């Protein structure tokens, strides 16, 4: 493979940085890929209506009224509120498959240090353990007969149930998904089974160097931040979780003020809204209000080295990035893409110092961060080149053809992320949940195309500083002064 999979993901970040959301079902695995493109640009969300004079409500202005709002269409997207729940439908005429995502807001706000992992375990058991009326086997057989898939997982800012089916089977699949959310069976045997699998995922993090590096970096940059309590939990917390805890945690989530439903496919918006009202409209509105995550901030560069005997050294540097709503967001996407290409050329093509240099933005959370990543047997020589390139970005203009080309590669990546209905649902939901406005995804390509060389220099000067670097490998080969020089 000419590129490591991590590089492809990155244009953003190494794969291990995809966040701690588990992707239980096989088809969700593909989602991890574009999670990290951080939505390089929009596309399939029709651009035709971006100049509409009929703006839709945004997530941060979530309705706290129990009254439903009438559906409003903006291009191919229709929005409505159903008893406080936000519902988005994106029509794709002729699509063979339908995807839906029920996002549950809160994320790390919903748990603490002592019960981290509770939402992840509660949701996976809900999605796989059957319901009060269909036991695990009957539920699984029903899905198999339909050829449908349902999965669930927790994340930093929101958790989600996700479903995908043939168009003809969407209504039944949606009913099953909602049943799993509202009336899960939570059989004790399934709790134990999913607990073991969650523990297994935690143990595997210690085996794969990329995963271990990502974990060390996460602990470093989110120390004393709410994201510190990862959704997957720890061996200690997951081992202690009880079925009663899962049950009461789930009950807390069942309020419409924290729900966002996105459905993408060849569907009738009115029908989707009606079904959403029928199945979820009876839930209490609740009192969920979005509270912004505190930013991360570092006053000086640091390097954390963890010794591990490996054939090479794994290196990851992070810095706080602009949030989804920030006007620098598109700038960051482009700047880090330019830097990623340059790292590739300078580190790999010209100096063959590494197979896997990359740079990008991790944008799968409200609090984003930029990343420089590389594996190298000569970490000092490699890191010097990486850091020099980052400095160059602050000081030298990016030639217009280079900038134009790199924006084009981002646009291609983003459109590729929009090829599938589940891809489009995930992107739309992400913009709504993390940025408070789904149209951020629609406007992203134009915002990226508008990025200038001067803007990139400003971004680099403002953000690429005080790098928090972690190294997994041989401490003897690391020059701390060099690694903490930017």
């Amino acid at each position: 493979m000419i590129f490591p999979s991590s590089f492809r993901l990155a244009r953003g970040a190494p794969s291990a940085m995809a966040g701690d959301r588990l992707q239980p079902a096989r088809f969700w695995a593909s989602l991890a890929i574009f999670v990290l493109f951080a939505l390089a640009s929009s596309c399939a969300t029709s651009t035709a209506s971006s100049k509409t004079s009929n703006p839709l409500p945004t997530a941060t202005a979530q309705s706290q009224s129990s009254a439903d709002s009438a559906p409003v269409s903006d291009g191919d997207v229709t929005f409505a509120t159903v008893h406080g729940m936000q519902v988005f439908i994106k029509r794709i005429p002729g699509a063979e498959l339908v995807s839906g995502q029920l996002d549950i807001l809160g994320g790390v706000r919903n748990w603490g240090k002592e019960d981290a992992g509770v939402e992840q375990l509660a949701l996976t058991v809900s999605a796989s353990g059957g319901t009060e009326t269909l036991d695990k086997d009957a539920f699984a057989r029903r899905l198999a007969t339909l050829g449908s898939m349902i999965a669930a997982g927790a994340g930093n800012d929101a958790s989600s149930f996700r479903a995908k089916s043939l168009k003809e089977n969407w209504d039944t699949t949606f009913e099953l998904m909602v049943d799993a959310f509202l009336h899960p069976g939570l059989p004790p045997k399934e709790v134990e089974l999913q607990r073991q699998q969650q523990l297994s995922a935690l143990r595997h993090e210690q085996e794969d160097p990329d995963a271990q590096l990502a974990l060390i970096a996460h602990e470093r940059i989110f120390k004393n931040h709410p994201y510190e309590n990862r959704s997957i939990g720890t061996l200690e917390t997951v081992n202690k979780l009880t079925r009663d805890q899962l049950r009461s945690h789930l009950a807390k989530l069942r309020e419409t003020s924290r729900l966002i439903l996105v459905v993408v496919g060849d569907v009738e918006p009115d029908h989707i809204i009606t079904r959403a009202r029928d199945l979820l409209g009876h839930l209490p509105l609740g009192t969920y209000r979005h509270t912004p995550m505190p930013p991360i901030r570092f006053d000086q560069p640091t390097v954390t080295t963890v010794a591990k005997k490996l054939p090479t050294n794994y290196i990851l540097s992070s810095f706080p990035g602009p949030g989804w709503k920030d006007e620098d967001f598109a700038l960051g996407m482009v700047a880090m893409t330019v830097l990623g290409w340059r790292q590739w050329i300078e580190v790999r093509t010209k100096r063959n110092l590494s197979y896997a240099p990359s740079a990008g933005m991790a944008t799968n959370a409200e609090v984003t961060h930029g990343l420089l990543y590389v594996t190298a047997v000569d970490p000092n020589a490699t890191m010097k080149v990486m850091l020099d390139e980052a400095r160059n970005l602050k000081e030298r203009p990016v030639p217009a053809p280079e900038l134009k080309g790199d924006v084009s590669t981002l646009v291609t990546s983003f459109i590729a992320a929009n090829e599938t209905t589940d891809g489009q649902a995930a992107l739309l939901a992400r913009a709504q949940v993390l940025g408070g406005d789904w149209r951020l995804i629609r406007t992203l390509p134009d915002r990226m195309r508008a990025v200038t060389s001067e803007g990139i220099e400003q971004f680099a000067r403002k953000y690429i500083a005080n790098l928090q670097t972690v190294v997994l490998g041989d401490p003897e080969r690391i020059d701390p002064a060099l690694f903490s020089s930017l």
Partner: protein
Amino acid sequence: MQLRFAISAKVVISTFAGAALAAPPPIQTHRLPNGLEVLVVENQSVPLVTIEFAAKNGSMTEPPSYNGLSHLYEHMFFKANAVIPNQEAYLARMRQLGMQFNGSTGTERVNYFFTTTSDHLAESMQFMRDAIVSPLFEPKELEQEKQVVIGEIDRNESNPYYHFQHEVSKRVWWKYPSRKDPLGNRKTVLAATREQMKTIQKRYYIPNNSVLVVTGDVKAIDVFQQTEQLYQKWKAGPDPFKKFPLVHHPPIPRSEVVMVEQPVETVSIELVWHGPSTVDDHVELTYSADLLGYAIQEPSSPFEKNLVESGACVHAAFSWSTQMNVGPITLGLEATPDKVDECLKAAIAELPRMKSSDYLSDEELRNASHRLEVDQALEREKPSELAHVLTFWWCSAGLNYYLSYLDNVKKATRADIARFLETYVLGKPYVLGAMVSPKMATELHLNRAHFERLAGIGERADASRVGADKAER
């Protein structure tokens, strides 16, 4: 000109019998006079096009002295050619064309793909052609790229699972291990020469050993026209597999255990048998193998219930890998250290049950083939991935196999599944690999003798040593 293409192009439609599924977009095919097969799947859902080239190459063609060189060649594809002077210029052109790109090397396929916006189709087709037909293998670039490939090997060797797979594979394919090892090794990579690159090019990168797949927002007729023009001077060569036939992998002589100690947190176990091939006399058993594999991965299957839901194993999977030259059958298990015995015993006990007539219900078999059908719909939904799917099948099974695949899976019966198991698994020699941490090996006595006892493998048969004595050189 257009009329000619309209006449010579074939439209083939895979048969999807599921009533709920829409008719899939046809795969339009066109074979050039030089033998290059061109496949096009039109899909206008997003303004992207994916151009993918694949050759029947990879480790199946590699004697020990060439092990890993198909992969090195793959890296050199992205460097200088007759039109592009060096990799910097190559990358600059790709950035100009807004491309996502990559390549991969497997046992039976090497593929290269570019995805970009459809307005760049013509330029991208030309760019692909130049890389395919005129790589230069500049000595300086070759030497540099060897270091990059070594970096890739470093990363693989940093992962415990690489070592596990590698050690098991060496025993399973004991006579010709290099033929199933696409990554190769440092020694051959570092010793690689430009002449070896040219040998690979001359032997395998010929139109009559290759396929070009274009998917997405294109018109097949345009693609066929462009390929006619772009590849008309590319000359066919002798069928590489006549002069250099695939090796015959001799059976595993007797069951054996291979232990791998790595810094891991759980225990991984693999039981691997030689399975059928897509082109041999037992091709019909490949369909029953896949039907079985799909049926038992459902959470309600007896396999999942007995092995995973019972609490014996954390994960369990049983599958056959689609290959032209002996696909391995793998029973993969993960267990916590305290349940290793329970997990392996449960798995071994499950195997004979899988052939009984009441193991899977009619409904479960129907659902399994329906899952396969829906999976194909998922593949169609993403044209950029569909290109990879098509080149994979083209190389390892042939287009006709792929087109009739679902029908054949649906025809598979319980008796076929039983025959598949009896022919390849039950009572047949296999390699049992187990990966544990040094601490587990010491404190819990999870050693070779322990696994031999558990699996009922009698006297230790060091097939690896026997094999090594006779391995291909």
